Protein backbone atom coordinates (compact mmCIF):
# COMPACT_ATOMS: atom_id res chain seq x y z
CA UNK A 1 0.00 0.00 0.00
CA UNK A 2 1.41 3.32 -1.04
CA UNK A 3 1.01 5.99 1.60
CA UNK A 4 -0.13 8.42 -1.05
CA UNK A 5 -3.21 6.26 -1.66
CA UNK A 6 -3.93 5.71 2.01
CA UNK A 7 -3.87 9.35 3.14
CA UNK A 8 -5.57 12.49 1.91
CA UNK A 9 -3.54 15.55 2.88
CA UNK A 10 -4.37 19.23 2.41
CA UNK A 11 -2.97 22.41 3.87
CA UNK A 12 -3.50 26.15 3.74
CA UNK A 13 -1.70 29.13 5.19
CA UNK A 14 -2.80 32.75 5.26
CA UNK A 15 -1.39 35.99 6.67
CA UNK A 16 -4.75 36.84 8.26
CA UNK A 17 -6.28 40.31 8.21
CA UNK A 18 -3.98 42.21 10.58
CA UNK A 19 -0.40 41.08 9.97
CA UNK A 20 1.55 42.19 6.92
CA UNK A 21 3.63 39.03 6.67
CA UNK A 22 2.96 35.36 7.00
CA UNK A 23 5.56 33.88 9.33
CA UNK A 24 3.96 30.42 9.40
CA UNK A 25 5.24 27.54 7.29
CA UNK A 26 3.55 24.29 6.37
CA UNK A 27 5.11 21.39 4.49
CA UNK A 28 3.65 18.03 3.55
CA UNK A 29 5.40 15.06 1.99
CA UNK A 30 2.85 12.51 0.84
CA UNK A 31 5.44 9.84 0.07
CA UNK A 32 6.84 9.99 3.59
CA UNK A 33 3.49 10.53 5.29
CA UNK A 34 4.97 13.61 6.94
CA UNK A 35 3.24 16.91 7.70
CA UNK A 36 5.06 19.71 9.52
CA UNK A 37 3.59 23.04 10.60
CA UNK A 38 5.60 25.85 12.19
CA UNK A 39 4.70 29.30 13.54
CA UNK A 40 7.71 31.60 13.42
CA UNK A 41 8.43 34.60 15.60
CA UNK A 42 10.88 37.39 16.20
CA UNK A 43 12.63 40.08 14.25
CA UNK A 44 11.76 41.74 11.00
CA UNK A 45 10.54 38.85 8.82
CA UNK A 46 12.96 36.54 10.65
CA UNK A 47 10.09 34.46 11.99
CA UNK A 48 9.46 33.41 8.44
CA UNK A 49 13.07 32.24 8.14
CA UNK A 50 12.83 30.23 11.36
CA UNK A 51 9.57 28.47 10.48
CA UNK A 52 10.81 27.82 6.93
CA UNK A 53 14.04 26.31 8.23
CA UNK A 54 12.11 24.09 10.62
CA UNK A 55 9.79 22.61 8.01
CA UNK A 56 12.61 22.18 5.48
CA UNK A 57 15.17 20.62 7.83
CA UNK A 58 12.68 18.23 9.43
CA UNK A 59 11.50 17.15 5.99
CA UNK A 60 15.02 16.63 4.69
CA UNK A 61 16.18 14.73 7.76
CA UNK A 62 13.31 12.29 7.58
CA UNK A 63 13.62 11.89 3.85
CA UNK A 64 17.23 10.96 4.24
CA UNK A 65 16.75 8.46 7.05
CA UNK A 66 13.42 6.89 6.13
CA UNK A 67 14.56 6.59 2.52
CA UNK A 68 17.34 4.24 3.60
CA UNK A 69 14.76 1.64 4.51
CA UNK A 70 15.81 1.38 8.11
CA UNK A 71 15.26 -2.05 9.64
CA UNK A 72 12.36 -2.19 12.07
CA UNK A 73 14.39 -4.43 14.33
CA UNK A 74 16.12 -1.30 15.64
CA UNK A 75 13.20 -0.96 17.97
CA UNK A 76 9.54 -0.10 17.95
CA UNK A 77 10.14 3.57 18.52
CA UNK A 78 12.10 4.21 15.35
CA UNK A 79 9.77 6.98 14.22
CA UNK A 80 9.91 8.63 17.62
CA UNK A 81 13.69 8.71 17.44
CA UNK A 82 13.79 9.99 13.88
CA UNK A 83 11.29 12.76 14.50
CA UNK A 84 12.95 13.84 17.73
CA UNK A 85 16.37 13.88 16.07
CA UNK A 86 15.07 15.83 13.09
CA UNK A 87 13.52 18.48 15.34
CA UNK A 88 16.68 18.66 17.45
CA UNK A 89 18.72 19.28 14.28
CA UNK A 90 16.31 21.98 13.19
CA UNK A 91 16.60 23.60 16.61
CA UNK A 92 20.39 23.67 16.39
CA UNK A 93 20.41 25.08 12.88
CA UNK A 94 17.95 27.87 13.74
CA UNK A 95 19.79 28.61 16.97
CA UNK A 96 23.11 28.98 15.13
CA UNK A 97 21.59 31.16 12.43
CA UNK A 98 19.95 33.34 15.07
CA UNK A 99 23.24 33.78 16.89
CA UNK A 100 25.45 34.32 13.85
CA UNK A 101 23.44 36.79 11.83
CA UNK A 102 22.18 39.99 13.34
CA UNK A 103 19.11 40.11 11.08
CA UNK A 104 18.04 36.72 12.47
CA UNK A 105 18.60 37.63 16.10
CA UNK A 106 15.83 36.51 18.39
CA UNK A 107 14.05 34.37 15.84
CA UNK A 108 12.38 31.14 16.80
CA UNK A 109 9.49 28.93 15.86
CA UNK A 110 6.95 26.50 17.21
CA UNK A 111 6.55 23.18 15.49
CA UNK A 112 3.99 20.40 15.31
CA UNK A 113 4.69 17.37 13.15
CA UNK A 114 2.91 14.14 12.29
CA UNK A 115 4.55 11.12 10.68
CA UNK A 116 2.23 8.41 9.35
CA UNK A 117 3.94 5.07 9.02
CA UNK A 118 2.91 1.47 9.45
CA UNK A 119 -0.60 2.24 10.71
CA UNK A 120 0.84 4.48 13.41
CA UNK A 121 0.94 8.24 13.66
CA UNK A 122 3.92 9.70 15.49
CA UNK A 123 3.20 13.16 16.88
CA UNK A 124 5.85 15.66 17.93
CA UNK A 125 5.52 19.24 19.06
CA UNK A 126 7.15 22.17 20.81
CA UNK A 127 5.32 25.43 21.48
CA UNK A 128 1.65 26.24 21.07
CA UNK A 129 0.87 24.86 17.63
CA UNK A 130 -1.67 22.09 17.98
CA UNK A 131 -2.90 18.76 16.74
CA UNK A 132 -6.57 17.80 16.93
CA UNK A 133 -8.14 14.51 15.93
CA UNK A 134 -11.67 13.57 14.95
CA UNK A 135 -12.23 9.84 15.34
CA UNK A 136 -15.80 8.76 14.76
CA UNK A 137 -17.78 10.86 17.21
CA UNK A 138 -14.78 11.76 19.35
CA UNK A 139 -12.94 15.08 19.02
CA UNK A 140 -9.67 15.47 20.91
CA UNK A 141 -6.73 17.77 21.22
CA UNK A 142 -3.69 15.48 21.11
CA UNK A 143 -1.08 18.07 22.03
CA UNK A 144 -0.78 20.17 25.17
CA UNK A 145 0.47 23.70 24.49
CA UNK A 146 3.84 24.72 25.80
CA UNK A 147 2.59 28.13 26.81
CA UNK A 148 2.39 30.28 29.87
CA UNK A 149 -1.39 30.16 29.59
CA UNK A 150 -1.39 26.36 29.72
CA UNK A 151 0.91 26.45 32.74
CA UNK A 152 -1.29 28.96 34.52
CA UNK A 153 -4.24 26.63 34.09
CA UNK A 154 -2.28 23.55 35.11
CA UNK A 155 -1.04 25.25 38.23
CA UNK A 156 -4.58 26.27 39.09
CA UNK A 157 -3.81 29.98 38.94
CA UNK A 158 -6.69 30.48 36.56
CA UNK A 159 -9.52 28.25 35.41
CA UNK A 160 -9.62 26.92 31.87
CA UNK A 161 -12.74 29.05 31.30
CA UNK A 162 -10.70 32.12 32.24
CA UNK A 163 -8.09 31.29 29.60
CA UNK A 164 -10.18 33.23 27.10
CA UNK A 165 -9.67 36.49 28.96
CA UNK A 166 -5.98 35.95 29.68
CA UNK A 167 -3.40 38.25 28.13
CA UNK A 168 -0.77 35.54 27.93
CA UNK A 169 -1.88 33.76 24.80
CA UNK A 170 1.17 34.98 22.93
CA UNK A 171 3.73 33.67 25.41
CA UNK A 172 5.17 30.25 24.57
CA UNK A 173 7.47 28.38 26.94
CA UNK A 174 9.18 26.30 24.27
CA UNK A 175 10.33 27.26 20.80
CA UNK A 176 12.91 26.05 18.31
CA UNK A 177 15.98 28.23 17.86
CA UNK A 178 15.87 30.02 21.20
CA UNK A 179 17.94 27.70 23.36
CA UNK A 180 20.73 25.29 22.50
CA UNK A 181 18.69 22.26 23.44
CA UNK A 182 14.99 21.68 22.99
CA UNK A 183 12.59 19.39 24.83
CA UNK A 184 10.26 17.83 22.28
CA UNK A 185 7.08 16.02 23.25
CA UNK A 186 6.63 12.90 21.12
CA UNK A 187 3.86 10.33 21.30
CA UNK A 188 2.50 7.57 19.12
CA UNK A 189 -1.08 6.65 18.37
CA UNK A 190 -2.47 3.85 16.28
CA UNK A 191 -4.17 5.37 13.27
CA UNK A 192 -7.63 4.22 12.27
CA UNK A 193 -9.37 4.42 8.92
CA UNK A 194 -11.63 7.48 8.96
CA UNK A 195 -9.48 9.46 11.40
CA UNK A 196 -8.98 13.11 10.54
CA UNK A 197 -5.91 14.85 12.02
CA UNK A 198 -5.69 18.61 12.07
CA UNK A 199 -2.50 20.59 12.64
CA UNK A 200 -2.85 24.32 13.21
CA UNK A 201 -1.10 27.46 14.36
CA UNK A 202 -2.65 29.56 17.13
CA UNK A 203 -4.05 31.92 14.50
CA UNK A 204 -6.76 29.28 14.10
CA UNK A 205 -7.50 28.19 17.66
CA UNK A 206 -7.27 31.74 19.07
CA UNK A 207 -9.87 32.92 16.59
CA UNK A 208 -12.13 29.90 16.14
CA UNK A 209 -13.68 28.17 19.09
CA UNK A 210 -12.85 24.47 19.53
CA UNK A 211 -16.54 23.65 19.11
CA UNK A 212 -16.51 25.29 15.69
CA UNK A 213 -13.27 23.56 14.68
CA UNK A 214 -14.95 20.29 15.61
CA UNK A 215 -18.11 21.26 13.75
CA UNK A 216 -16.10 21.99 10.60
CA UNK A 217 -14.26 18.66 10.84
CA UNK A 218 -17.53 16.79 11.26
CA UNK A 219 -19.35 18.63 8.49
CA UNK A 220 -16.59 18.47 5.89
CA UNK A 221 -15.14 14.98 6.36
CA UNK A 222 -15.54 14.18 2.67
CA UNK A 223 -13.58 17.12 1.31
CA UNK A 224 -10.30 17.72 3.11
CA UNK A 225 -9.06 20.59 0.89
CA UNK A 226 -12.36 22.39 1.54
CA UNK A 227 -12.03 21.72 5.27
CA UNK A 228 -8.72 23.58 5.52
CA UNK A 229 -9.98 26.47 3.37
CA UNK A 230 -13.15 26.71 5.45
CA UNK A 231 -11.21 26.88 8.72
CA UNK A 232 -8.94 29.64 7.41
CA UNK A 233 -12.03 31.53 6.27
CA UNK A 234 -13.66 31.15 9.69
CA UNK A 235 -10.54 32.51 11.41
CA UNK A 236 -10.57 35.50 9.08
CA UNK A 237 -14.33 35.99 9.50
CA UNK A 238 -13.72 36.22 13.25
CA UNK A 239 -11.04 38.85 12.85
CA UNK A 240 -7.93 37.12 11.49
CA UNK A 241 -5.65 38.71 14.10
CA UNK A 242 -2.73 36.39 13.42
CA UNK A 243 -1.29 34.23 10.65
CA UNK A 244 -3.46 31.16 10.13
CA UNK A 245 -2.12 27.78 9.12
CA UNK A 246 -4.05 24.55 8.89
CA UNK A 247 -3.13 21.10 7.62
CA UNK A 248 -5.47 18.12 7.62
CA UNK A 249 -4.81 14.44 7.06
CA UNK A 250 -7.55 11.88 6.55
CA UNK A 251 -6.77 8.19 6.83
CA UNK A 252 -8.58 6.60 3.89
CA UNK A 253 -7.07 3.09 4.10
CA UNK A 254 -4.77 1.10 6.36
CA UNK A 255 -1.09 1.68 5.61
CA UNK A 256 0.98 -1.26 6.89
CA UNK A 257 4.66 -1.12 6.05
CA UNK A 258 4.61 -4.50 4.33
CA UNK A 259 1.48 -5.59 2.51
CA UNK A 260 0.24 -9.02 3.50
CA UNK A 261 2.35 -8.98 6.63
CA UNK A 262 0.68 -8.56 10.00
CA UNK A 263 1.69 -5.15 11.17
CA UNK A 264 3.21 -4.82 14.61
CA UNK A 265 0.18 -3.01 15.91
CA UNK A 266 -2.25 -5.49 14.55
CA UNK A 267 -0.14 -8.20 16.12
CA UNK A 268 0.17 -6.37 19.40
CA UNK A 269 -3.53 -5.71 19.83
CA UNK A 270 -5.16 -8.93 18.66
Amino acid at each position, binding site marked *: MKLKNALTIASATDAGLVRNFNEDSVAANEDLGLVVLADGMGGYKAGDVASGMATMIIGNELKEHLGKGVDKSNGVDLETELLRTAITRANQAIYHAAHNKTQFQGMGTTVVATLFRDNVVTIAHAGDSRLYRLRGGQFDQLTVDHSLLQEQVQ*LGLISSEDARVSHNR*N*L*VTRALGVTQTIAVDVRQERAQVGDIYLLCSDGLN*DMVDDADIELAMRS*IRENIPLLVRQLVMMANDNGGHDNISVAAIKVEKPFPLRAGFFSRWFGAHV
Partner: protein
Amino acid sequence: MAKLVLSMNGSVLGNYFLEKERFSFGRKPTCDIQINDQGVSKEHAVILTVGNDQILEDLGSTNGTLVNGEKVQRHILQNGDVIEVGRYKLRYVNAKAMPDMDFDKTLMIPAFDRTKLKQEGADKDEADTQGIATAVANARNVKTIFPLGAVRGISGDNTGQEIELSRSITAFGKPDNSAIITRRPVGYFITHVAGKKHPVVNGKAIGDDPFPLDNLDQIEVGPDKLQFYLK
Protein backbone atom coordinates in the same frame (compact mmCIF):
# COMPACT_ATOMS: atom_id res chain seq x y z
CA MET B 1 2.45 49.87 33.63
CA ALA B 2 -0.77 48.88 35.29
CA LYS B 3 -2.09 50.89 38.20
CA LEU B 4 -4.84 50.90 40.77
CA VAL B 5 -6.83 54.01 41.56
CA LEU B 6 -8.10 53.88 45.14
CA SER B 7 -11.27 55.76 45.93
CA MET B 8 -14.10 56.00 48.42
CA ASN B 9 -17.47 57.62 47.80
CA GLY B 10 -16.20 58.99 44.52
CA SER B 11 -13.11 60.76 45.89
CA VAL B 12 -9.75 59.54 44.68
CA LEU B 13 -7.42 58.69 47.55
CA GLY B 14 -4.34 57.56 45.65
CA ASN B 15 -2.68 55.84 42.69
CA TYR B 16 -0.66 52.65 43.08
CA PHE B 17 1.52 51.08 40.42
CA LEU B 18 1.59 47.30 40.25
CA GLU B 19 5.34 46.95 40.10
CA LYS B 20 5.62 43.88 42.29
CA GLU B 21 4.99 40.30 41.36
CA ARG B 22 2.79 39.99 44.43
CA PHE B 23 0.86 43.08 45.40
CA SER B 24 -1.33 42.89 48.49
CA PHE B 25 -4.01 44.96 50.14
CA GLY B 26 -5.67 44.72 53.50
CA ARG B 27 -5.79 46.24 56.96
CA LYS B 28 -2.27 45.16 57.96
CA PRO B 29 0.47 47.83 57.74
CA THR B 30 2.69 45.40 55.79
CA CYS B 31 0.22 45.33 52.89
CA ASP B 32 1.16 47.27 49.74
CA ILE B 33 -2.05 49.21 50.13
CA GLN B 34 -3.18 49.53 53.69
CA ILE B 35 -6.92 50.06 53.93
CA ASN B 36 -8.27 50.97 57.34
CA ASP B 37 -11.83 49.77 57.14
CA GLN B 38 -13.67 47.37 59.42
CA GLY B 39 -15.07 45.59 56.38
CA VAL B 40 -11.56 44.79 55.13
CA SER B 41 -9.62 41.76 56.36
CA LYS B 42 -6.03 42.00 57.62
CA GLU B 43 -4.73 40.40 54.43
CA HIS B 44 -7.68 40.79 52.14
CA ALA B 45 -6.50 40.06 48.62
CA VAL B 46 -3.45 39.98 46.35
CA ILE B 47 -2.73 40.72 42.73
CA LEU B 48 -0.25 38.29 41.18
CA THR B 49 1.57 39.21 37.99
CA VAL B 50 2.15 36.25 35.68
CA GLY B 51 3.42 37.21 32.24
CA ASN B 52 0.95 39.75 30.92
CA ASP B 53 -1.78 38.69 33.31
CA GLN B 54 -2.58 40.29 36.62
CA ILE B 55 -4.64 37.92 38.66
CA LEU B 56 -6.69 39.16 41.59
CA GLU B 57 -7.07 36.59 44.32
CA ASP B 58 -9.17 36.87 47.45
CA LEU B 59 -7.24 35.51 50.45
CA GLY B 60 -10.27 34.13 52.23
CA SER B 61 -11.41 37.52 53.44
CA THR B 62 -14.40 37.75 55.75
CA ASN B 63 -16.49 40.01 53.55
CA GLY B 64 -15.17 38.95 50.16
CA THR B 65 -13.85 40.81 47.13
CA LEU B 66 -16.08 42.12 44.37
CA VAL B 67 -15.15 42.85 40.78
CA ASN B 68 -17.68 44.91 38.82
CA GLY B 69 -20.26 44.06 41.46
CA GLU B 70 -19.68 40.31 41.48
CA LYS B 71 -17.94 38.27 44.14
CA VAL B 72 -14.76 36.63 42.88
CA GLN B 73 -12.21 34.17 44.20
CA ARG B 74 -9.76 34.56 41.32
CA HIS B 75 -10.08 36.91 38.43
CA ILE B 76 -7.86 37.96 35.54
CA LEU B 77 -8.01 41.74 35.64
CA GLN B 78 -9.22 43.59 32.56
CA ASN B 79 -8.74 47.27 31.87
CA GLY B 80 -11.41 49.29 33.70
CA ASP B 81 -12.35 46.60 36.22
CA VAL B 82 -13.55 47.98 39.54
CA ILE B 83 -12.49 46.01 42.60
CA GLU B 84 -14.48 46.57 45.78
CA VAL B 85 -13.23 45.77 49.26
CA GLY B 86 -15.29 47.07 52.16
CA ARG B 87 -16.33 50.63 51.35
CA TYR B 88 -13.32 51.18 49.11
CA LYS B 89 -13.01 50.89 45.35
CA LEU B 90 -9.89 50.12 43.33
CA ARG B 91 -10.09 50.79 39.61
CA TYR B 92 -7.66 48.74 37.51
CA VAL B 93 -6.11 50.74 34.69
CA ASN B 94 -4.04 48.92 32.07
CA ALA B 95 -4.58 49.83 28.43
CA LYS B 96 -2.88 46.60 27.38
CA ALA B 97 -5.27 44.37 29.29
CA MET B 98 -8.20 44.32 26.91
CA PRO B 99 -10.07 41.06 26.53
CA ASP B 100 -10.30 41.06 22.73
CA MET B 101 -7.27 42.91 21.47
CA ASP B 102 -4.47 40.91 22.88
CA PHE B 103 -2.54 39.84 19.84
CA ASP B 104 0.96 40.95 20.47
CA LYS B 105 3.63 39.08 18.59
CA THR B 106 4.52 35.70 19.98
CA LEU B 107 7.38 35.71 22.45
CA MET B 108 9.30 32.94 24.06
CA ILE B 109 9.62 33.08 27.83
CA PRO B 110 11.08 30.49 30.15
CA ALA B 111 8.63 28.32 32.03
CA PHE B 112 8.09 30.00 35.35
CA ASP B 113 9.32 29.04 38.73
CA ARG B 114 6.74 26.56 39.93
CA THR B 115 7.97 26.44 43.50
CA LYS B 116 7.47 30.14 43.93
CA LEU B 117 3.96 30.07 42.55
CA LYS B 118 3.07 27.02 44.58
CA GLN B 119 3.59 29.11 47.66
CA GLU B 120 1.14 31.63 46.36
CA GLY B 121 -1.61 29.18 46.97
CA ALA B 122 -1.93 27.45 43.62
CA ASP B 123 -3.93 24.40 44.49
CA LYS B 124 -4.07 22.20 41.46
CA ASP B 125 -1.84 19.30 40.57
CA GLU B 126 0.31 19.91 37.56
CA ALA B 127 -0.31 16.40 36.33
CA ASP B 128 -3.59 17.70 34.99
CA THR B 129 -2.71 18.20 31.35
CA GLN B 130 -5.82 18.98 29.43
CA GLY B 131 -5.98 21.17 26.42
CA ILE B 132 -7.49 24.58 27.01
CA ALA B 133 -9.80 26.73 24.98
CA THR B 134 -7.97 29.88 23.97
CA ALA B 135 -10.33 31.34 21.42
CA VAL B 136 -11.06 34.96 22.26
CA ALA B 137 -14.51 35.63 23.61
CA ASN B 138 -15.75 37.21 20.41
CA ALA B 139 -14.77 34.12 18.40
CA ARG B 140 -17.31 31.94 20.12
CA ASN B 141 -20.18 32.87 17.92
CA VAL B 142 -20.09 34.27 14.49
CA LYS B 143 -20.36 37.98 15.04
CA THR B 144 -23.12 38.84 12.69
CA ILE B 145 -25.59 41.62 12.35
CA PHE B 146 -27.22 39.60 9.61
CA PRO B 147 -30.71 38.25 10.39
CA LEU B 148 -30.94 34.59 11.31
CA GLY B 149 -31.53 32.29 8.34
CA ALA B 150 -33.26 28.95 8.00
CA VAL B 151 -34.20 26.41 5.39
CA ARG B 152 -37.45 24.51 4.97
CA GLY B 153 -37.54 21.10 3.29
CA ILE B 154 -39.73 21.13 0.17
CA SER B 155 -39.07 17.55 -0.85
CA GLY B 156 -36.74 14.77 0.23
CA ASP B 157 -35.38 14.03 3.70
CA ASN B 158 -36.44 17.20 5.48
CA THR B 159 -39.84 17.80 3.90
CA GLY B 160 -41.91 20.27 5.88
CA GLN B 161 -39.20 20.75 8.49
CA GLU B 162 -37.56 24.02 9.37
CA ILE B 163 -33.84 23.91 10.06
CA GLU B 164 -32.46 27.02 11.72
CA LEU B 165 -29.04 28.03 10.46
CA SER B 166 -27.79 29.32 13.79
CA ARG B 167 -24.40 27.61 13.85
CA SER B 168 -21.41 28.57 11.75
CA ILE B 169 -21.85 25.47 9.56
CA THR B 170 -24.87 23.31 8.78
CA ALA B 171 -24.38 20.17 6.68
CA PHE B 172 -26.88 18.77 4.18
CA GLY B 173 -27.12 15.64 2.06
CA LYS B 174 -25.41 12.28 2.34
CA PRO B 175 -21.67 11.53 2.45
CA ASP B 176 -21.64 10.80 -1.29
CA ASN B 177 -23.52 13.96 -2.16
CA SER B 178 -23.29 16.78 0.30
CA ALA B 179 -23.15 20.51 0.85
CA ILE B 180 -22.73 22.94 3.71
CA ILE B 181 -24.40 26.25 4.43
CA THR B 182 -22.08 28.56 6.30
CA ARG B 183 -23.11 31.51 8.41
CA ARG B 184 -20.67 34.36 7.94
CA PRO B 185 -20.56 38.00 9.08
CA VAL B 186 -21.60 39.04 5.57
CA GLY B 187 -24.38 36.52 5.13
CA TYR B 188 -25.08 32.89 4.25
CA PHE B 189 -23.21 30.82 1.68
CA ILE B 190 -23.73 27.37 0.27
CA THR B 191 -20.68 25.30 -0.65
CA HIS B 192 -20.36 21.99 -2.46
CA VAL B 193 -18.61 19.36 -0.31
CA ALA B 194 -18.73 15.97 -2.04
CA GLY B 195 -20.42 14.13 -4.89
CA LYS B 196 -20.46 14.48 -8.66
CA LYS B 197 -23.47 16.76 -8.65
CA HIS B 198 -22.99 20.26 -7.32
CA PRO B 199 -25.82 21.90 -5.39
CA VAL B 200 -28.35 23.77 -7.51
CA VAL B 201 -29.57 27.25 -6.56
CA ASN B 202 -32.66 28.57 -8.39
CA GLY B 203 -32.21 26.00 -11.13
CA LYS B 204 -28.50 26.63 -11.69
CA ALA B 205 -25.63 24.45 -10.47
CA ILE B 206 -23.10 26.33 -8.37
CA GLY B 207 -19.33 25.99 -8.87
CA ASP B 208 -16.67 25.02 -6.36
CA ASP B 209 -16.65 28.37 -4.58
CA PRO B 210 -18.99 29.33 -1.75
CA PHE B 211 -22.17 30.75 -3.31
CA PRO B 212 -24.04 33.58 -1.53
CA LEU B 213 -27.67 32.86 -0.66
CA ASP B 214 -30.51 35.36 -0.96
CA ASN B 215 -33.86 35.31 0.79
CA LEU B 216 -36.22 32.72 -0.74
CA ASP B 217 -33.56 30.98 -2.85
CA GLN B 218 -34.48 27.45 -3.91
CA ILE B 219 -31.75 24.92 -3.18
CA GLU B 220 -31.22 21.36 -4.37
CA VAL B 221 -28.70 19.06 -2.70
CA GLY B 222 -28.83 15.66 -4.37
CA PRO B 223 -32.49 14.65 -4.45
CA ASP B 224 -33.46 17.02 -1.62
CA LYS B 225 -35.12 20.37 -2.30
CA LEU B 226 -34.98 23.15 0.23
CA GLN B 227 -35.96 26.78 0.48
CA PHE B 228 -33.69 29.30 2.15
CA TYR B 229 -35.16 32.30 3.94
CA LEU B 230 -34.24 34.96 6.46
CA LYS B 231 -36.20 35.11 9.68
